[in-house]
């Protein structure tokens, strides 16, 4: 459905929306009571351990588990053979083979087998006693290697989709996405200035602090309960069921609290293994990854290679853009090359363009979504090139973006027309902020970049119950990663006109609320919020009806104001929510309603950011001095958590820009699978992250909400690179901008 237009959109004056309530789950989270995935413990529970491939690419010749099965405490051992070979689409086979290898190990860390035993130590010892014979195969670790003629193939039947004519030979290129418009040759011919370059980025990990965990309990009659911390327990149910060869209804998934996901907890790794082990052992089984396993086996974001070229008129008008982009998918098809292609030039009106995105398999862990998947890399190339052009043309970096910025009614490079959007507002907010005028010292630089990301809509359900005391329970199926319970409570409070403290938001399991797609795609406040609003409105309609009945008046005579039913002429004493709840025996029973929707009306999110940094010219070390981000949130339901999303995304982006990267040795083994050498920013690396929350209401949402979770990570890569160039006059097109790389650029002046 399309979310109903509501006068509230045009006349804010909200009482709860936009306030900073204390989150409903706060007490549990600051006292250590909140239960995350690894905190679940059941009676008789066994501990699992996963055996992983030590090779980047190898044929599995044989697996001998006999020794392991005999060891003390061991209750179950499983391999790929314990799962049905899915006959369905290639995607299902890939899903299953990523969970547990069958014919081949395709990356170091690929699951080969798993054990359940009475203690962790026993499980580990038994896993190590499994004898696997491998035949090591040559591996490919970059898009260049993978796309080279004669490259070793990961999948012997992989045919590139999206090329015409269709290829007859398999390759490591899974697909090609193309977006084009106008006449490229003409565009470049018309250009006064052309900037071009080749950009590379390394795989980076989402870096959530909570490792993956799953606990499964299978009863002999096959009913299974699964506890896991994920971004969507309904998705975990359907994906796990696919791998197990089950109907989803056989599985009940109970969401544990989730310790960060950023897209990385939208797919399954341990869940089907825990279920199968539990089924085989007849006991509950818990599987928890170590940090090392998280790095080696779960979703990084793609490494990329992007060749870009942009053409401009002397006045800064962008007239042509060409991008060739190859994204590493990891071991199975499915990189966000398509989304990267769609977003690359989306913020700008460019009449002539050709964008090609290739999805390329390599012998690395299969990539998973990471905040605005695909967009940061393509934006890094485009926003770096725009910066170069601005410098060449002598135009302020904000002005050149203003000159080309999309506004309402513009057609995006990926097709649709933009509705009301707030991109220009973010640019102006930065331009008018005092930070943008602060004079810089020697070796200091300022960098600007913008970014775009979609909001997903997808499916959401919510159920609203009124308790007999007039308090309200709001059940959704969207895990709360960053304070969404608070947003749900605020929206319900606004609808009912009661104190938000009287709303109890609950994240229900897969059997206590309707289907919900996962928390991701910046969709929860938007879409699940819309379902909550709709369910609240149904209950309110019911409440009004009951008041009308009680007063024996027509429904139109009853309005709902500030938590009570009022007679429009004031001829009756108002009936509060509690009054009506107390009387429900006489008016038709308990008060409850559900809503389910497939959200459309989704908005578009834009962000513009500016960073000031200082470089030590003798060591290449970067200090971030100040950071300012302006993002269009549509309407900030809980401003603190909106700011938090903005700040968190920025800092992840800074990490990506400066120091984060997967490092592999020549055998394809990861060399830095821990937080000491995979360097996410620490507190002392960062300044405060200043935020400007721009509010250009999304016309498609009752309160004007836009998703805010993702776009913040898009601009930092280029913003930092642009600032480095500003500080030391070196355009570096390869991330990360580590001290080693920056010093090299400084010393080798011609690079």
């Amino acid at each position, binding site marked *: 459905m399309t979310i109903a237009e509501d006068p509230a959109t045009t006349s804010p004056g909200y009482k709860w929306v936009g306030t900073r309530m204390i*989150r409903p789950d706060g007490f549990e989270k600051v*006292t250590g009571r909140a239960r995350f995935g*690894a905190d679940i413990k059941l009676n008789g529970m066994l501990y699992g351990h996963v055996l992983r491939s030590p090779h980047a690419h190898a044929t599995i010749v044989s697996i001998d588990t006999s020794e392991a099965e005999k060891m003390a405490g061991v209750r179950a051992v499983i391999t790929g053979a314990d799962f049905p070979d899915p006959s369905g689409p290639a995607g299902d086979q890939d899903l299953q083979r990523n969970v547990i290898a069958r014919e081949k190990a395709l990356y170091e860390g690929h699951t080969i087998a798993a054990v359940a035993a009475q203690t962790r130590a026993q499980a580990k010892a038994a896993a190590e006693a499994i004898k696997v014979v491998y035949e090591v195969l040559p591996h490919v670790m970059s898009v260049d290697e993978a796309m080279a003629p004669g490259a070793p193939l990961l999948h012997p039947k992989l045919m590139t989709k999206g090329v015409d004519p269709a290829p007859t030979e398999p390759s490591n290129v899974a697909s090609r996405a193309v977006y084009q418009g106008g006449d490229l040759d003409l565009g470049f011919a018309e250009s006064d200035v052309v900037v071009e370059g080749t950009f590379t980025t390394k795989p980076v990990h989402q870096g959530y*602090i909570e490792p993956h965990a799953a606990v499964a309990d299978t009863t002999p009659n096959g009913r299974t309960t699964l506890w896991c911390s994920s971004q969507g327990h309904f998705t975990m149910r359907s994906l796990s069921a696919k791998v197990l060869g089950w109907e989803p209804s056989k599985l009940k998934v109970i969401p544990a609290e989730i310790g960060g996901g950023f897209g990385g907890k939208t797919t399954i790794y341990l869940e089907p293994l825990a279920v199968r082990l539990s089924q085989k052992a007849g006991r509950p089984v818990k599987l928890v990854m*170590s940090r090392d396993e998280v790095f080696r086996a779960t979703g990084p974001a793609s490494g990329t290679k992007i060749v870009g070229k942009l053409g401009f008129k002397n006045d800064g008008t962008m007239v042509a853009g060409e991008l060739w982009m190859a994204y590493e998918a990891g071991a199975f098809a499915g990189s966000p090359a398509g989304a990267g292609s769609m977003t690359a030039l989306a913020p700008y009106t460019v009449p002539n363009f050709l964008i090609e995105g290739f999805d390329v398999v390599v012998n690395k862990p299969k990539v998973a979504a990471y905040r605005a998947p695909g967009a940061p890399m393509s934006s890094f190339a485009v926003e770096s090139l725009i910066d170069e052009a601005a410098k060449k043309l002598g135009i302020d970096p904000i002005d050149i973006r203003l000159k080309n910025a999309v506004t309402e009614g513009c057609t995006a490079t990926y097709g649709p027309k933009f509705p009301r959007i707030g991109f220009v507002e973010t640019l102006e907010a930065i331009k008018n902020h005092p930070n943008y005028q602060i004079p810089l010292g020697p070796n200091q630089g300022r960098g600007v970049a913008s970014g775009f990301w979609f909001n997903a809509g997808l499916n959401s359900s919510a159920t609203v119950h009124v308790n007999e005391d007039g308090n309200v329970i709001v059940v959704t199926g969207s895990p709360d990663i960053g304070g969404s319970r608070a947003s749900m409570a605020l929206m319900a409070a606004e609808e009912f006109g009661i104190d938000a403290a009287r709303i109890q938001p609950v994240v229900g399991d897969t059997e206590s609320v309707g289907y919900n797609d996962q928390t991701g795609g910046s969709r929860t406040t938007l879409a699940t919020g819309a379902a909550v609003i709709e369910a609240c409105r149904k209950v309110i309609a019911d409440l009004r009806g009951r008041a009308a009945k009680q007063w024996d008046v027509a429904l139109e005579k009853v309005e709902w104001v500030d938590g009570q039913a009022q007679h429009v002429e004031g001829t009756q004493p108002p009936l509060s929510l509690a009054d009506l709840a107390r009387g429900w025996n006489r008016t038709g029973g308990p008060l409850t309603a559900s809503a389910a929707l497939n959200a459309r009306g989704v908005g578009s999110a834009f962000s513009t950011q500016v960073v000031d940094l200082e470089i030590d010219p003798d060591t290449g070390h970067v200090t971030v001095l100040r950071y300012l981000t302006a993002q269009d949130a549509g309407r900030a339901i809980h401003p603190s958590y909106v*700011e938090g999303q903005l700040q968190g995304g920025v800092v992840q982006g800074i990490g990506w820009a400066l120091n984060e990267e997967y490092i592999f040795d020549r055998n394809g083994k990861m060399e830095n699978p821990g937080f000491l050498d995979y360097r996410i*920013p620490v507190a002392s690396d960062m300044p405060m992250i200043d935020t400007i929350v721009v509010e250009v209401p999304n016309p498609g949402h009752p309160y004007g909400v836009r998703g805010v979770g993702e776009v913040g990570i898009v601009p930092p890569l280029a913003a930092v690179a642009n600032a480095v160039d500003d500080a030391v006059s070196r355009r570096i097109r390869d991330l990360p901008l580590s001290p080693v790389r920056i010093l090299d650029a400084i010393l080798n002046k011609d690079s």
Partner: protein
Amino acid sequence: MSRIQVSCTVNGDSVDFLCDADGSLLNALRDELGLTGIKEGCGTGDCGACSILMDDELNCACLIFAPEATGTTITTVEGLADGDHLTPLQECFLEGAALQCGICTPGFLVAATALLQHNPNPTETEIRYALAGNLCRCTGYDKIVRAVREAAAQMREASA
């Protein structure tokens, strides 16, 4: 492998547990004593999610062999509040939205408690360096640093 019995004081209670010689204190506290407020983010001292106070010193429980706890006094996140009476740090974390997913929060609260015991009036830089052993991937640290600063101010005021 014979298990070792360890007696110590945790959050004011005298407790005993059994452990292996090379078992980590983190696993012992979580599995044997059910103190799952302490989190494992890495198991190798890099993230601070397992921060505890042991004999008033800030430590990573994952970097301690469980038998070493014998005779010590340990405070975990579960021991910070007095019933439903939260500490100023806990209050300020809530007020200031200094947590998003909350997995890092127990470690930050314990580390910040240690900081404010030694330094009641830390600068922003001191807070950032003192908390550098605690990783947070959600917040970008901004609101955490502000919450600690605010709690410090409240605590100074209360004791003035």
